């Protein structure tokens, strides 16, 4: 790129960067305490139905090899 083209490219980049930052600066933000509480509540509410967290009983695990049983 010629040096003139490079400076006009850099100028465009800078304009876009500022435009993007203006957008992001305007975002509404909630308090960290509320964000954290909501995350915690979600985890707690969904815990019981999280198989990797609770463990899966062998009889309900489609990936577990079924051991053969002998009937005595």
């Amino acid at each position, binding site marked *: 790129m010629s040096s003139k083209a490079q400076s006009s490219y850099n100028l465009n980049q800078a304009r876009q960067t500022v435009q993007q930052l203006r957008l992001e600066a305007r975002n509404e933000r909630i308090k*960290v305490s509320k964000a954290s509480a909501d995350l915690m509540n979600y985890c707690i509410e969904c815990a019981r139905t999280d198989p990797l967290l609770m463990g899966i009983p062998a009889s309900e695990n489609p990936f577990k090899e079924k051991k053969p049983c002998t009937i005595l």
Partner: protein
Amino acid sequence: MGEMEQLRKEAESLKDQITAARKAVQDSTLQEAAAGITVVGRIQMKTRKTLRGHLAKIYAMHWSTDSKLCVSASQDGKLIVWDSVTTNKVNAIPLKSSWVMTCAYAPSGNLVACGGLDNMCSIYNLKGKDGNVKVMRELAAHTGYLSCCRFISDTEIITSSGDCTCILWDIETGTQKTVFAGHQGDCMSLAVAPDFKFFISGACDFTAKLWDIREGTCRQTFGGHESDVNAIGFFPNGNAVITGSDDATCKLFDLRADQELITYQDSSIMCGVTSLAPSLSGRLILAGYDDFNVNIWDMLKAERVGVLAGHDNRVSCIGVSADGMACCTGSWDSFLKIWN
């Protein structure tokens, strides 16, 4: 003052404004909020299945929404669709280019996609009339490698690339709908929000960005990592983002508070994070590392609560099935393992 200098000053001022606005809502920390919660007990998972068949490094895997089938991509030049329960290969698709870096399963189960150093995203129809799996579309426009791709539906897919952009494609016409530009480094991975309205991308500029799919705009940018962001995922309710980086840490960013809430790190872990996936409730974060292991983190307490050790080389990809019943890991050792 020249315009360039003016713009530079305004950029600095805006960055300070954002930092101040983030600090202004920091009335607590996630650590403090979770102080009363006990750490999750030790998580021990076993390898239930080993999927053997690839002849070279596995670079990517993705579960089908049915929680039984999954697709994997290897630099042996094949995409394999597996039945994870029986370990049978449902499809073995030979690729034009063996330099594949990503693969994806469409939510419908009808299509799979892949791409890599060919700079293209190839779409394959698994449900063709004569039973043969053929290339349906080749999406070409990126000027860099394809690092990740995720379907929105059978007609739309999002790709991330080493050319620093992400693209939303119309699969039917094979054309670009929207180009998402803004990252200052290679885009390494992407994840679509549960409501399909947003997606997030992680890049080699050390940041993660949240994008509005329909508006085509970047809504938020998250910094803090000290190296490339290789892996990214949404917390299950869509309100937070988890990232994994070459700086050996994972981080949780809350979207509504617009900031990092916690970092998952340990002084004994010194290698990069390659991949990550949350468990169904989001309480566990499973992260794959360069040291051949997967570490399981308690998302709220930032403590390591388990390890999946079983691969003989780097864990390159990880996924938790939609019903949360199993975790699948893929490795440079050429095997996939199913754990629960």
